[in-house]
């Protein structure tokens, strides 16, 4: 009986000592996923659209002071300051989750009419930090209200509630081409918002 008791005590003490030594910085880290770091090389046209496959674009739209211009013809992407002139050739441009077209119009999946861009003065936020002084800083720009509905950002609560529409948006590019776009993610692997993954397909 005494030997059995000693064994129990020894086992308990050994288990506790092992736990103490291994647990200083925590246990069970393998429960979690380790996200890949964004190095920049993965941004752009991740895959090209074909007749049978959807294309995929991944962009960093985290900066409030920059537009990201996408050109489907040559599959190029330019990121420019909101005050810079637009590039010579582009099809759509994105600022955070805001979108605009280059003279085109957009129809939401399930709707019947195309909606053109509108000129705005109080939509494209360029500086959130002035919110502490009671106002937001905007830049004037064209903006497509229909395409920008691909992600609803409910700011009535803090933090805002983000809801993807999950719908396709048919963009008439104004030169006879039409591309279908769907926003499938707005975060990177670490969960940082402002990284957009877009599926596209020419109609």
């Amino acid at each position, binding site marked *: 009986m005494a030997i059995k*008791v000693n064994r129990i005590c020894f086992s308990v003490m050994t288990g506790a000592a092992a*736990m103490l030594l291994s647990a200083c910085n*925590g246990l069970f880290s393998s429960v979690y996923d380790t996200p890949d770091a964004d190095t920049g090389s993965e941004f752009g046209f991740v895959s090209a659209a074909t007749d049978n496959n959807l294309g995929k674009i991944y962009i960093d739209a985290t900066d409030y002071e920059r537009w990201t211009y996408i050109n489907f013809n040559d599959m190029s992407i330019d990121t420019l300051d909101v005050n810079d002139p637009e590039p010579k050739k582009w099809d759509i441009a994105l600022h955070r989750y805001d979108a605009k077209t280059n003279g085109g119009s957009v129809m939401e999946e399930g709707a019947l009419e195309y909606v053109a861009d509108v000129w705005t003065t109080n939509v494209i936020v360029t500086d959130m930090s002035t919110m*502490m002084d009671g106002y937001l800083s905007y830049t004037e720009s064209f903006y497509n209200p229909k395409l920008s509905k691909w992600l609803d950002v409910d700011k009535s609560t*803090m*933090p805002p509630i983000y809801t993807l529409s999950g719908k396709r948006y048919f963009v008439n590019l104004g030169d006879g081409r039409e591309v279908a776009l769907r926003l499938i993610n707005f975060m990177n692997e670490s969960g940082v918002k402002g990284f957009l993954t877009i599926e596209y397909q020419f109609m």
Partner: protein
Amino acid sequence: MRNTILALALGIAGAGADNVPEEQDSLDARWNTLLNTVVITGTRTPKLLKNSPILTRVLSSSDIKSADATNISDLLQSELPGIEFTYSMNQQVNLNMQGFGGNSVLFLVDGERVAGETLDNIDYNRLNLSNVERIEIVKGGASALYGSNAVGGVINIISKEQSQPWTLNLNGRYGAHNEQRYGAVAGFSKGIFSSATTLQYNHINSYNMKNEGDYTRFYGGYNWNVKERFTVTPFSQLKLTGRLGYYFRQRNAQESTRDRYRGFSGGLRGLYTFSHANDLEVSYSFDQYDKSDYMVLTDKDVRKYSNVQNSVRAIYNHTFAGKHILTVGGDVMRDYLLSYQFENNGHKSQVTADGMAQFDMNFFDNFNIIAGGRYDYFSESSMKHFSSRLSLMYKLNKWNFRGSYSGGFRAPTLKEMYMNFDMAGIFMIYGNPNLKPESSNNFQLSAEYTHRLLNFNIGTFCNLVDNRITTAWDQTLGGQFYNNISRVNIAGVDANVAWKHACGFGSRLSYIYTHEHVRKGEPYTTSTRPHTATLRLNYGRSWNNYRFNIALHGRALSAVTVDEFTSLTDYSETEKVRYPAYTMWRLNVTQGIWRGIDLTLAVDNLFNYVPKYYYSNSPTTTGTTVSVGLSVDVDKFFKK
């Protein structure tokens, strides 16, 4: 004397009210049991409740059962006035206990700290109430015994000890918004070994509020809680207690992201009794609390926060002349914090160490003095702090008079020292490594009268709180910065009356008046409601194979007018905002059928209170709701 109480603490009290024979479970027996309850939190040594100079409120397992609460926040709000759980940003739960926030009230589970926090509050869902023997609440500073965070009080959850050869309880509850709770508690005791295993699952849907407000939707989710607690008594002088726990909670605030929270805990405690006059307790405790984002779109679960606490403690008690108890001890704790709120998602750690001594003097039968002090050291800030306490109790016939001074303090946390967090591009929040510790001087006076089945006590308290830590706008940095503020005074009156009648009727009325004074111009204003009260009326009878209990729980909170800042960056101008009063009532009807089968019907928000506007301190209710619960003690089927 002390060993008799120790035996009570380990044996009789450990058996729990649910384990006493049925015929003893009358109101009279429960009343006597309550008066003779052994409490430990106020002095860290077992003491009869009626003999403790530290006024302690005990919520027994019967109280917990009667309240039908799932976690500690539900129970405390139901049973105690002066406690309000509200929402802070992102619908995170925030405690206000008589003017003290969640980080100034120390929550313990069997005397051990709980790791992790969100917006200065621990995860109260971790503290579920399965297999809980009792909860001890000590108000006022208690840092002379417990160190940092015991500024406004200590709430200690004491687990049941298994004493029966075997027990098995299965229980479930179903309520509004698809609220589901399922639990199982299995225990056995054989020879030198005993064990209790607890499993609980909770779920509730997200749902919309009925009116506009600071929040318009309650975020649902689910959680799991598994606990194992075992004891080994290899010989009469040595008792080893081990525990393991796992906790998982998911909250569905966003469609694309799920907030996940995990807890891992373990510990081992050894109590060695050298003689009638000497015993030594040595313990090791591990607690880890993680937060992660599960991204639905990519099926990735990424950890963003981990707090790990490893602590070792030794406490030695020596009894002089059979009645004076000297307690000396110390702890060493390593605190590790990994956080998304640190620069580059980094981590910090520090070691804290302390030594404490307490002398419990009983020179006369009717006069008890307890004096104690504790010295704490924190490696990261090289901060040192001394806390002291003096408590007196004088008994005169049916009266107990208590008076105490106690010091409390809260050391700056690693988060408060090193935060470097971008708040959605709007502003930065910076930590401050030069923060001073919060400290409080707490004074209490109370008188308690007990006669037969009546217990009445009234007390007054005053807390002088210096260097409270909060964030304030710093124009130079262009962001929020952790800083100390000038003195806050909190004072009030606390009154309780409890009465039981032999016919089966019982009642308890508790009331607290709290006044919190904050100097104008500080980056903090009070939102503490001045008047709060709770009421419980219950009536129960039992026969051979049938018993019932009806309990009405009421809670009343007065309106409060708050001075709110008109600017987020300047604290000179305020405007008055009035938050409405409300009452909340709950009716529980429990029927006991045959052996160990209890069927509970509960009507929550009995008078259908619906806030016209959902403020962050409004109750999360959409009106009257009903729930049904079933609890089965399987072991009682097989007992004669």
